[in-house]
């Protein structure tokens, strides 16, 4: 007896709440997964990852700055007019390790506050590397290196796939989602994107469900409950289900069908939800996207979701130009959006269940070009959430000298933590079984530490 059967949802004018949604067919893997040994604590828990992708290469080196005399001087000798003023930095203390004294960019103060509450952690000098890599190994080319190290497209793809040196077939999110989708009836809602197609969530036969930050769109003029529109709406549906004789029209019909069915189902659930009252920052695209994510998370119980991965994106970090002018806005928009999101999670009681992490193509170069920086390598990133063991910096702060021991090619810092280690920490918390970890992240075994320790289990 399948205890996940749902009543077929009937649209009766006013949207009803209970048992919402059409069953798109019982998930055949579902009962199988329930009965086998799962990596989850019990049958009802929920966890979600939210990837906040910072497009263009975020300048983590302006977010987290060493403030000890010698370190700060070294930093300003490199960054010159692009340096963040020492007296503007917010003092950051750390629980572990000796990172020296550190400061946090004032324009990201809401994130600093979360750090102080121990719900945000910094992960220092992380980036795409295949094996542990030093400056001399880079210069001698004596270890495998990621292909096309300073190309946006390639580094973004590598961050989102983590399948090796070059382009792979599958994103690490998609591989994990394929596993997680076995635990919920609505497997098609395992991956959701607020920014359209992305490499992280695609592959392994998975494709994320795409939503707009403004909410679910409705088809104009195709309302089956409207007497006038009904014949047209039904004709349209039938056309979408016709067999196609071209690979592109077939794929087109697939997407159209999913849109028709999921829109109807999800629309009812979202409309029936109580609105989130936390005030959303104005004119902040990232906040709008995250607001939509929060609404979906709020509905996770009704939708029967156990594990989900969400993708949102913020643009504008490729500051070759106008860095001093632009960066304050970038950081404050980012910080406002992330802290708003965390507050909404508090409001709906999902704080401990959702971990948000930032990722970006690369960090930026230590040297400038007059009014901006160029593509770098190692970067400082952030993880946020109730399950994060925050108030600390994980990893090692690099030397900020252009020709120093940690920088290559005129001021690109060699990462001391690998993006794959970062991903492994997140996936382990999500409950990906150990025996799948190395298949999902093929270069993880190259590193001694397969968990960076910033998440409670």
């Amino acid at each position: 007896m399948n205890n996940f059967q749902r009543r077929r949802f009937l649209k009766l004018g006013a949207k009803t709440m209970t048992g919402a949604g059409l069953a798109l067919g019982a998930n055949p893997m579902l009962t199988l997964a329930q009965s086998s040994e799962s990596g989850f604590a019990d049958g009802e828990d929920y966890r979600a990852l939210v990837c906040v992708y910072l497009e263009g290469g975020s300048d983590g080196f302006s977010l987290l700055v060493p403030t000890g005399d010698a370190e700060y001087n070294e930093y300003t000798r490199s960054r010159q007019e692009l340096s963040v003023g020492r007296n503007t930095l917010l003092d950051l203390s750390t629980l572990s390790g000796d990172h020296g004294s550190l400061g946090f960019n004032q324009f990201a103060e809401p994130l600093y506050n979360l750090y102080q509450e121990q719900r945000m952690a910094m992960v220092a000098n992380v980036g795409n590397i295949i094996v542990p890599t030093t400056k001399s190994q880079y210069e001698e080319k004596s270890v495998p290196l990621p292909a096309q190290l300073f190309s946006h497209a390639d580094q973004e793809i590598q961050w989102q796939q983590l399948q090796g040196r070059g382009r792979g077939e599958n994103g690490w999110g998609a591989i994990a989602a394929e596993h997680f989708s076995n635990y919920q009836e609505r497997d098609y809602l395992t991956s959701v994107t607020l920014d359209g197609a992305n490499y992280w969530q695609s592959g392994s036969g998975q494709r994320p469900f795409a939503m707009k930050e403004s909410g679910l769109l409705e088809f104009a003029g195709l309302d089956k409950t409207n007497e006038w529109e009904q014949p047209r709406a039904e004709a349209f549906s039938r056309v979408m289900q016709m067999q196609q004789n071209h690979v592109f029209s077939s794929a087109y019909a697939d997407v159209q069908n999913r849109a028709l069915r999921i829109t109807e189902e999800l629309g009812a659930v979202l409309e029936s939800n109580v609105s989130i009252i936390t005030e959303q920052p104005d004119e902040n695209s990232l906040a709008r996207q995250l607001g939509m994510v929060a609404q979906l998370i709020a509905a996770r119980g009704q939708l029967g979701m156990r594990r989900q991965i969400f993708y949102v994106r913020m643009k504008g970090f490729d500051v070759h130009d106008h860095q001093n002018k632009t960066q304050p806005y970038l950081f404050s928009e980012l910080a406002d959006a992330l802290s708003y999101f965390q507050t909404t999670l508090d409001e709906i009681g999902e704080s401990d269940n959702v971990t948000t992490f930032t990722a970006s193509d690369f960090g930026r170069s230590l040297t400038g070009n007059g009014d901006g920086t160029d593509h770098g390598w190692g970067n400082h990133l952030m993880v946020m959430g109730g399950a994060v063991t925050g108030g600390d910096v994980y990893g090692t702060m690099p030397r900020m000298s252009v020709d120093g021991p940690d920088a290559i090619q005129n001021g690109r810092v060699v990462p001391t933590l690998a993006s794959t280690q970062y991903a492994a920490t997140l996936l382990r918390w999500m409950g990906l079984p150990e025996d799948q970890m190395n298949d999902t992240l093929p270069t993880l075994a190259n590193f001694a530490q397969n968990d960076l320790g910033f998440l409670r289990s």
Partner: protein
Amino acid sequence: MTIRIKLLLPLVAVLLSACGGNGGTSQSSTGTPAIAPALPATEVNNAAPDTPLSKEEAFRLLGQTTFGARLNDIDRISGSGPEKWIDDQMTMPATFMSDGLRQAANNRWNEYVNVWWRQAINAEDQLRQRTAFALSQIFVVSAEGALGSEQEGLANYYDMLLRHSFGNYRDLIKEITLSPVMGEYLSMKGNHKPDAELNLRPDENYARELLQLFSIGLSMLNNDGTTINDDSGVPLPTYTQDTVEAFAHVFTGWHFANAEHFRWPTNKDFINPMVVWPEYHDTGEKTLLNGFVVPAGQSAEQDLDDALDNIANHPNVGPFIVKHLITKMITSNPSPQYVSDVVQVFNENAQGERGNLGSTVKAMLMHTEAREGHITNPEVFGKTKEPLMRISQVWRAFSPNSIHKEFDYSWVGNELQQAPLGSPSVFNFFTPDYSQPGTIRNSGLVSPEFEILDESSMVSITSRLLANSLWSHNYKVQNDGQRIAINIDREMDLESNPDALLDHLDLVLLGGRMSDELRHEVVRLMDSRDYKNAASQRVAEAIFLISSSPEAAVQR
């Protein structure tokens, strides 16, 4: 105050485009319309015979060379071979956006988008318009960002692409490199030579994207477009970080034509080419592609020309550009033979010229794969139509007698994820190698346009197609000037004869290839509207159902 000497660029451009190149060399928007010479017939290997086109074949050719087939064009070009259409189109005077913008009846800040729509729908030089549109997705600049309020500059940039659509690649990249719009977009303007004291090195942005996106790409290519790989199967890179830095040093010392300082000037000229400030140009030696060394001590202009020659002569340019053009106009998954045949023409056309885009475009269209690919590879040949083309196709097929001066669809980008000169980044709306997970990816095919076709954008496209037909045709009582009312007179004449109407819609929307099942559904829907005075409803719904179908979503 030093007098800025304006470069004699027009003269240089004429000298470079030796063999009958285009006549449009003036930099301002009122330049002489560009033309291209008539080209010899069988310039490409494996050309299709230039035999008279059937109506269905005419539709196909129009699908590749226009923003949507029109019945009168189908009638006109069927009965002749494809070459006549191509030649006619290439010798037609160009329609420029700057002119349209000047004549616009209102001063919306983004009226250039509406100007673009008017040209897409009505301009006679459709092949040039379609080619320039493809070029605008390769040599990307965008209103997203600092250029948002510079519509004259953006229109002028687009006009430059129009002027060079059938011209020479080397001329094109020179104009692009010195374009102030590109200078702003990829931050080449104000690029400063190295300064050790200030710990300042040249901005690498333009250098990198010129190589990666506008000329040779990241990976070494064979002439058939396939990559040359190392032993572990990873493609061999075309250049290193050092090369990028070298080019970055070449592109130093240029700024807006009217800049009053080199560092953060207030004056910004987005029309005229950038000019040199020699004191900010790095005169060191630079090692470029394939070990080519630019000697020390040269002027900025000389360095730039040497660098562009170095790029334009790289063997990758042919396959890189040809594959782009083919995938944007003909088919997403061309055979290596097709690419190779067209690359041969790019590399050297019948007059011995390298990089002639006119010869290349014609070769691309005359090749047997373009003319017959739908027969030899019916399940795969072709490309998914991009959102703007789905809309333009219906507006052209049922085009109104005139477009109202208040017409406004400038907000298309918000709705359809695509807008002219509105790419979210320099990587265009979709990348050339995006592959939809599922059958397409499992078959090793690419489907670039699917990158922006997801559940949410598809709802918008379908809704827009519905609104543009059902709610906006010339038999509706209320039509405001802001929307285009499609003209369905011809279809209303046929309405009493459903078979004739369906045959007609089949030809003009699907090139005569409508499936029986779709036809059946259209007839069924029309039959359900059996009340009096429902003729226009029947016609409009038929148009909607056909144009929104998966069959209509693919150009083949």
